[in-house]
């Protein structure tokens, strides 16, 4: 009997069917391409093809001054630009051995927590859309819009904010900043209840997420997965508590953890994180200390030769900056540890043996941003 190439494309297990998801696909969240090896609808293996959005961010850093590079980091995780900026600014401050004034750190904390809520809201909306619920996306966007408005009022930009400067802040909190944040936080309590009503108890939602994409604690640590994925597996590890930065040591908040490490747990963890972020914001605006907003840094930044690693808890996981200085005004090398990139490694582990429909659920629950994966 003659063998032919087309014979490999059968659905009966005579051989696997290879399905190309992406780079143009509605639910790969950008230009991720996943090659799926399928047996029927069951996934037997995956291969991620990345790099479609590679811009050489790390290389660019070597040809820019420290200040000039700051806006570039906003373009990595573009749905959480404020967090990226915070990590970079703090890393350079550490390299310069200066510290931002307390008032600057508190405002940074507020904005970063708002950004966390915004990032999680975008995740929730798109994740629900992937699983087939159309409506939560628009509700999430509505709330995210409020946050983006606060950003716009604060620094003039909505998405790639470049809100912080090395050494502190450029802009003072505008008049009514506290009031805006407070109004949002007060409102958000009720709004989050809407998502709970739509999704949390919905049996289809539970059926689609529970026991899907399980990643237990040992696997998480082995793969370097961080953020809500790690916490959903039951590991109580959050840099805001473990190595406090900005002004997190001043505020009370809980670290939510899950038990199974499945998609549903990650959903619950992120929902709780949004509530906790809201609480942090409410605590912070109660008392924003007076004082300067800019530390003592010169116009030209020339850190002493040396190297530094600084990591923060970005909405998607641990975001680390490793900067090597040779004493000039440009960094010698910048290496970024993007949470999405590392978390994406877990995809294959999470998806094997599941169905095609679960692939989009798992990609959604990983909460990746391709700008950050490809850099």
């Amino acid at each position, binding site marked *: 009997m*003659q063998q*032919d190439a*087309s*014979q490999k494309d059968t659905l009966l297990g005579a051989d696997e069917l290879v399905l190309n998801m992406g780079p143009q696909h509605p639910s790969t969240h950008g230009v991720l391409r996943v090659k799926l090896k399928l047996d029927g609808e069951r996934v037997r293996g995956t291969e991620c093809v990345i790099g479609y959005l590679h811009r050489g961010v790390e290389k660019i850093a070597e040809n820019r001054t420290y200040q000039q590079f700051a806006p570039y980091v906003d373009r990595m995780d573009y749905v959480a630009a404020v967090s990226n900026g915070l990590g970079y600014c703090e890393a350079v401050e550490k390299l310069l051995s200066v510290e931002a004034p307390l008032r600057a750190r508190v405002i940074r904390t507020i904005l970063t927590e708002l950004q966390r809520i915004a990032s999680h809201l975008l995740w929730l909306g798109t994740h629900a859309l992937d699983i087939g619920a159309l409506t939560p996306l628009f509700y999430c966007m509505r709330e995210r819009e409020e946050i983006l408005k606060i950003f716009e009022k604060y620094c003039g930009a909505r998405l790639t904010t470049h809100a912080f400067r090395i050494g502190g802040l450029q802009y003072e909190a505008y008049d009514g900043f506290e009031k805006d944040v407070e109004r949002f936080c007060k409102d958000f309590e009720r709004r989050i209840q809407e998502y709970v009503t739509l999704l949390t108890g919905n049996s289809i939602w539970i059926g689609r997420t529970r026991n899907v994409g399980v990643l237990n604690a040992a696997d998480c640590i082995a793969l370097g997965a961080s953020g809500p994925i790690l916490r959903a597996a039951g590991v109580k590890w959050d840099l805001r508590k473990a190595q406090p930065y900005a002004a997190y040591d001043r505020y009370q908040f809980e670290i939510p953890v899950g038990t199974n490490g499945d998609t549903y747990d990650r959903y619950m963890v992120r929902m709780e994180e949004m509530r906790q972020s809201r609480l942090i914001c409410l605590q912070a605006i109660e008392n924003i200390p007076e004082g300067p907003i800019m530390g003592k840094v010169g116009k030209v930044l020339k850190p002493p030769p040396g190297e530094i690693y600084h990591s923060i808890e970005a909405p998607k996981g641990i975001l680390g900056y490793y900067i090597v200085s040779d004493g000039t005004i440009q960094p010698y090398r910048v290496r970024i540890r993007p949470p999405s990139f590392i978390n994406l490694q877990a995809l294959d582990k999470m998806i*094997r043996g599941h169905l095609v429909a679960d692939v989009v659920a798992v990609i959604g629950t990983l909460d990746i941003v391709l700008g950050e994966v490809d850099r």
Partner: protein
Amino acid sequence: MLDSIIFYFFAGVAVLSAALMVTRRNAIHSAVFLITTLLATAGIFLQLRAEFLFITQIILYVGGIMVLFIFVIMLVRLDAPIHQLRFRMQRLVAILVAAALGMEVTVILLLAHKLPGGGLLIQGSAPADRLPPNSEELAKSLFSNYLLPFEIASILLLVAMVGAVVMAKNRRRTDEP
């Protein structure tokens, strides 16, 4: 007049697509032409005032059996061998045998009026409509005179269903997940 137009239309479609079904090399095309034949036959049933059979033909044959066929053809997508030759030698034999059989039946039909009671077959029109179109009669007959065959048929279907499930079940699950 209208009657004969309808008959020749459906009969023509049925025979033509049946012929295409046997000659097409692509199995899906064969299935599509078989569906066309079945629909045309359903039209013939309707003309014979067998309305319940007409709809049964559509729901069961076209909506059920043929979908099953297409499903299986799509599962076993063996495009390459299907484009290969069919049995060359057997084709000649088949056509000869079919022609012989066809001649035989044709001769019988043409000579039917000489047989006792055979005149019925070729007279210009059927006797007065002794069978009004109604599904109730069919149901009554089915559930009274033919109750036992009906039950046997349902058992047959049950057995077929169980058998099909057992046979189609994938037992080869040795590869790791």
